């Protein structure tokens, strides 16, 4: 038995049925970021110095490069999910909301790709 009203059924409105995966994605990426973020914070605090050579020496280590890649991609994903909820909460006009969501997705993907490319360029050596 469906509990939906006839009008609701005709309009096809209701849950998009992807809320659960959004919720899980946010939690699991959050747990990953707790680990990766603490590693990165510790690395920053104990880095030899902040000259260009120090940054290159740090990023070009294979383990560091892999962890930085994971951090960059996971951060972009977690940030996108969070910003999406904020936009959905506060932007009420349908067109503006859609535009903001698309812009946010493009921005996150763009910076994630720039980050990944930069790490690979340093790690593999251009």
């Amino acid at each position: 038995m469906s509990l939906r009203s006839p009008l609701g059924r005709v309009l096809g409105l209701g849950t998009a049925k992807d809320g659960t995966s959004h919720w899980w994605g946010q939690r699991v990426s959050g747990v990953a970021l707790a680990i990766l973020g603490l590693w990165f914070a510790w690395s920053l605090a104990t880095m030899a110095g902040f000259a260009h050579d120090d940054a290159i020496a740090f990023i070009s280590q294979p383990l560091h490069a892999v962890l930085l890649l994971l951090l960059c991609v996971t951060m972009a994903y977690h940030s996108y999910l969070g910003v999406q909820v904020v936009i959905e909460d506060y932007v009420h006009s349908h067109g503006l909301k859609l535009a903001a969501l698309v812009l946010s997705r493009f921005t996150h993907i763009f910076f994630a790709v720039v980050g990944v490319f930069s790490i690979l360029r340093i790690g593999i050596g251009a």
Partner: protein
Amino acid sequence: MTNNDRPLSPHLSIYRWPVTMATSILHRATGIAMAAGFILFVFWLADSAAGPDAYAVFTGAAGSIFGKILLVGWSWAFFYHLANGIRHLVWDTGRGLGKEEATRSAWFVIVLSVVLTAGFWLVAS
């Protein structure tokens, strides 16, 4: 039936902020701050890859007074969002949702975030 005695929802201007309300708003605010911090992180990587000249521009901006204030802010945002995020994960298991418990964990998270931020800058300097 008269309903005149029922409690009214509190008016915003006379509403005493529970600390749990502040922690909730701060979680969102620090999240947004770190969405911007993500772009800073990518700038650090990209300027490192681009070479010493681009990197000098980055460290010059980050080392200015304004840059330092922002960096301290971002580090606190990170530790706050981390600590309060773990608080949210505990809530997700159904634990710690009572009023008194939530108030206690709110203060704990606030104090912890300040302590971790101070510890971070102590180790860094």
